[in-house]
């Protein structure tokens, strides 16, 4: 295959991985620190995308819309934490799964009531809609490059926040031993409301930037939520570093599998078999990856608790 195709797919995988990281980062901290499964995390991603699409219509500017969507989604996330999720910290995983599953149903219906069942149109901003020549003869969509840039920037900011600030220190303390952190005076309750807001904001960023590439529709949060869970389970729950490694791994494996597996199979098998089996294998590749990782390292690659 031509090298330009290969580079393009690697960039696509990298870009998808970075967006997955934005989703997984909030999820892994919530799970690691409060031991709480939040299936409704994907719903915040959906809300972020819907808010962006609406605000683009109102303000006419993509960047203003993203800013508004991030703030709005963060607010909704904090409200959710204060009203429902706070009740769930001390409950078992089953209750958490069920309650947040109920939240998905509720949020999906509310979105349907407000915006209707039809997918919304969220187009790439005018200035970024064209391709850019990144290497001689290799063109790549400008918007996807911007996504990579934004993803890297947010990831760096998050690493700085977690590893270099006092709030980050509290978060890490909470992730490795919650009771001890609380006993040492870490203000867990407000910290967690804040964390939830930040996580929701990150979801909104992912929703705003993936919206133009995928689709802004009801249920968009659920398929990507499962991917985000795969990411944090591979990376190790509670570890930001694990989330980044897991996200890039899943992004690259998924994209590369879809692009190259059917091609590879067509060399060794009949076209019939390849056209059937290729997409099938590609779509289960990341789950296979997760099962293999868990088989050898039941705590994920970078376990946060020791």
């Amino acid at each position, binding site marked *: 295959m031509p090298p330009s195709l290969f580079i393009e797919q690697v960039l696509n995988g990298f870009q998808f991985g970075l967006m997955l990281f934005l989703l997984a980062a909030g999820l892994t901290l919530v799970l690691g620190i409060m031991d709480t499964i939040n299936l409704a995390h994907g719903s915040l991603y959906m809300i972020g995308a819907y808010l962006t699409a609406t605000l683009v219509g109102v303000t006419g500017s993509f960047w203003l819309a993203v800013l508004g969507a991030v703030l709005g989604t963060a607010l909704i996330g904090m409200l959710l934490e204060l009203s429902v999720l706070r009740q769930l910290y001390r409950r078992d995983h089953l209750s958490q*799964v069920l309650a947040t*599953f109920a*939240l998905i149903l509720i949020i999906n219906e509310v979105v349907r009531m407000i915006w209707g069942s039809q997918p919304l149109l969220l187009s790439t901003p005018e200035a970024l809609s064209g391709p850019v020549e990144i290497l001689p003869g290799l063109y790549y969509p400008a918007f996807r490059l911007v996504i990579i840039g934004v993803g890297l920037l947010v990831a760096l900011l998050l690493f700085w926040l977690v590893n270099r600030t006092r709030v980050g220190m509290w978060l890490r303390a909470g992730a490795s031993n919650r009771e001890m952190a609380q006993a040492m005076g870490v203000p867990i309750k407000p910290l967690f409301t804040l964390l939830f807001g930040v996580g929701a904001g990150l979801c909104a960023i992912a929703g705003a930037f993936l919206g133009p590439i995928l689709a802004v529709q009801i249920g968009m949060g659920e398929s990507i939520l499962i991917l985000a869970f795969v990411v944090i389970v591979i990376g190790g729950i509670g570890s930001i570093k694990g989330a980044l490694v897991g996200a890039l791994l899943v992004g690259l494996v998924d994209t590369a599998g879809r692009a190259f597996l059917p091609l590879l199979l067509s060399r060794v098998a009949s076209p019939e078999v390849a056209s059937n089996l290729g997409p099938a294998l590609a779509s289960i590749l990341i789950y296979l990856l997760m099962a293999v990782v868990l088989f050898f390292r*039941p705590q994920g690659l970078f376990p946060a608790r020791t």
Partner: protein
Amino acid sequence: MRWIFPTVLLGLLLAFPPIAAAMGLEFYQGLLTKIMIFALAASSLNLILGYGGMVSFGHAAYFGLGAYTVAILMREGVTSGWVIWAVAVGLSALLALLIGAISLRTRGIYFIMITLAFAQMIYYLVVSFKQYGGEDGLRARRPEFGLFELNDTTLYYLTLGVLLAALYLLYRLVHSRFGRVLQAIRENEARALALGYPVFHFQLVAFVLAGALAGLAGVLMAHYTQYASPNLLAWQQSGHLMMMVILGGVGQFWGGVLGALVLSLVEEILQDLTIHWQLGVGLILLFIVLFAPKGLAGLMRRGS
């Protein structure tokens, strides 16, 4: 006098089809069939979820596999109902053995997620085979059973019979030594291990049995709708079954049956009232989880 209520209930269930036919209420016979199928699936999940403490988020895999086995075998020319049943249950048990053997190495959140991941694999595998319908699902004609012709009414009685047999089996099981050990493991795995019980084997046997029963429920579902839908395999279906179990009561013997009955009825009523019925289901579920953690069976027990 404890036997009066069950006997009356059973009598009513047995007498329902002719009464329904006489009064033009065939719709409710179908609804009852569907409820009994979900009761079977939810009860099988309750065995591992409630009694075993294994929060499997992938029960839809066996449910859907059962349904797809019917559809695919019928399409490939296998028309004997008994053969189809045996293959479907065997395949479901085999799948559960495979998934259980790997998943039971993990605990907690990791277990929830790996069972979910396996179910997703099955989902994507099945929908990617275009000759078996892909995303559209596959028609599942009703097979031949020789002794009787499978129609809506015989299916009703067949489902009732299977459900009763499965409930009897589960009742004997959870009250046997096996069931007590399973519950001991749920309460304190380290102690059960220290007492010398082969924890992994006990859990795996329960996991396989639950998978086989869910597969059987899927077979009945395919007979009922005459169609194998990818929705049966979707992760929302796993959530739906979990919803039934927690609504009815986790680890309460009648939890699965009660949950399937109440949730199906609530869905049916809300669907008549509004297109936004899922909002109602979500709110009720949220309320149950937050304020009645032991489910309806727990509420009733507390009331009496």
